[in-house]
């Protein structure tokens, strides 16, 4: 389905608001939306909510033959599915530009930065290695799928447990989870991507654009870093021209954001570990809000409320004089037709009128430009 085009007035509204450093949901320029991480019942399944953007990542593994030029390393495979569930403009099965872009960015962010020790995934050199596959499904698109997907992918990889194997000579035994506890993957570091949207040819910058902001942006800069301040990937997209200082500034902001997000992920992993140990139920069903009256309750967003009355009165003082509390009285050219308002002169109905009496009366009204209070005089005149 083709995307509904954005109307010009909405576009202008968004751009003007951004010029005045205001965002639709009341965030500051460098603020992220609320990030919520929940886990599914299986190891390696995690859901990430970034505001209204929701993605799910699932990690699975199987034994395959390794690549010829790398016989001692396991294989990592990433896939982001853009399903029509997330947005009606996504088409099932078609490899759209956005899907290619997201897939390649995620691959570069996680694979090239060597965040997982692939050598430890080798079982029999040259014959059998583990292929770890990360599938990210987008469930709801409200902007910034890249960041949500990167958080989901790395959290799922940290959460995942692969089956234990034992090698005795030529024989390889894979133990099921009941026989032996599965082993977690060895994760060296956690690369997280931070997206910056640029507006008005690079003059304005926003972190974590929502879907509306993404529609009006000029371009996007994605920086993936880990908490050790190592940059894992930088990618600029869209037809914007950047300056070196902008890139440096973005990388500084990104390092701050990444450390916050990494903290959140570690906390979520710890909570999940504790919950599983305590034997509690954890899964998709538990992470959904309960079916009660409070289910649609939204978290209160903080709005800047200081000096509201002062700024309010300031705005009123600056504005033009208030519209008059009175309204021009309705004019009746023909019985059954009434005209009220400021555009009466240009309607041209008076010239077409054959009724002399009414016409003269109205002409008199317009020349005087008399403004009359609606009650109680109109009850007299509209008879």
């Amino acid at each position, binding site marked *: 389905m083709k995307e509904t085009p954005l109307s010009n007035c909405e576009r202008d509204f968004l751009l003007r608001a951004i010029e005045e450093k205001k965002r639709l949901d009341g965030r500051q320029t460098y603020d992220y939306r609320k990030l919520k991480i929940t886990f599914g019942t299986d190891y390696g399944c995690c859901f990430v909510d970034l505001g209204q953007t929701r993605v799910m990542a699932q990690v699975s593994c199987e034994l395959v033959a390794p690549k010829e030029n790398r016989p001692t390393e396991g294989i990592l495979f990433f896939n982001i599915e853009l399903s029509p569930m997330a947005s009606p403009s996504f088409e099932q099965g078609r490899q759209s530009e956005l899907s290619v872009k997201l897939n390649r960015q995620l691959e570069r962010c996680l694979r090239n930065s060597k965040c997982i020790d692939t050598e430890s995934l080798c079982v029999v050199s040259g014959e059998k290695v583990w292929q770890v596959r990360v599938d990210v499904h987008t469930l709801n698109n409200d902007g910034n799928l890249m960041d949500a997907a990167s958080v989901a992918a790395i959290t799922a990889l940290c959460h995942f447990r692969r089956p234990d194997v034992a090698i005795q000579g030529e024989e390889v035994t894979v133990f099921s989870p009941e026989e032996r506890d599965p082993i977690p993957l060895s994760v060296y570091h956690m690369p997280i991507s931070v997206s910056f949207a640029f507006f008005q040819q690079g003059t304005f910058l926003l972190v974590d654009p929502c879907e509306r902001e993404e529609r009006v942006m000029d371009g996007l800069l994605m920086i993936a870093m880990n908490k050790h301040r190592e*940059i*894992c*990937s*930088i*990618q*600029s997209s869209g037809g914007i*021209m950047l*300056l070196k200082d902008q*890139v*440096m500034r973005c990388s500084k902001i990104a390092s701050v954001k990444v450390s916050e997000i990494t903290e959140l992920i570690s906390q979520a992993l710890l909570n999940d570990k504790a919950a599983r140990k305590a034997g509690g139920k954890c899964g998709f069903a538990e992470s959904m809000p309960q079916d009660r009256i409070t289910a649609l309750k939204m978290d209160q967003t903080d709005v800047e409320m200081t000096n509201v009355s002062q700024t309010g009165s300031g705005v009123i003082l600056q504005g033009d004089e208030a519209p008059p509390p009175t309204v021009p009285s309705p004019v009746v050219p023909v019985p059954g037709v009434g005209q009220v308002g400021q555009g009466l002169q240009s309607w041209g109905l008076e010239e077409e009128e054959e009724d002399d009496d009414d016409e003269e009366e109205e002409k008199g009204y317009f020349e005087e430009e008399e403004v009359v209070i609606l009650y109680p005089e109109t009850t007299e005149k509209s008879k």
Partner: protein
Amino acid sequence: MAGIELLSDQGYRLDGRKATELRKVQARLGVFAQADGSAYLEQGNTKVLAVVYGPHEMRGSRSRTLHDRAVINCQYSMATFSTAERKRRPHGDRKSTEMSLHLKQTFEAAVMTQLFPRSQIDIYVKILQSDGGNYSVCVNAATLAVIDAGIPMRDYVCACTVGFVDETPLADLCYAEESGGVSSLALALLPRGGQIALVQMDARLHQDHLEALIEAATTACKGVSKVLDEVVRQHLQEASVLTGE
């Protein structure tokens, strides 16, 4: 990675260059008479052919026509014989599509598309021999082809891939250096204003080194722009001699 030393103690790289030296650039404009613009560029051992058609009427999906500017359509493909092992899928796989998107993005920023509303400009790039810095050489070749086609651009678009080894930025990486796990940054620049049309970096690099790397890339791109400028002027001189001016 054990074994290969990318930067020796005396400051020489694998192919004998110094850290800031670019590879030898040889280029020709107007290699095809049929196309609107074409160029062949060799940077070291990487050989790229770029062909430009346009601006012409929108072909294919009319719905993608833009009312106020031209649409730029790029296609990047590698010849099957371009790499050490025969490439089974020259185009249509994810890496080629991504590269095409990046080229499109780079040229959308540089070409003055507002002058050609409702039309399409096609840029086709083919790698004949791949020896590192694929994206950068493609951008340089495509710039020459666009100039040959006479399409107005804001400035030359020059690109270079730089890497970071032993606290030193290396300009213009070759394949051996790229695959050695070196953090590489590809930068497409408009030299006069210093504006970056595209920046792309893979592999880990500490934040403190980023500034130095971008600086090195900018300097390398400015060097490339001088070479491209020289090539264009020489071509114009040859053409004017032939037309008898």
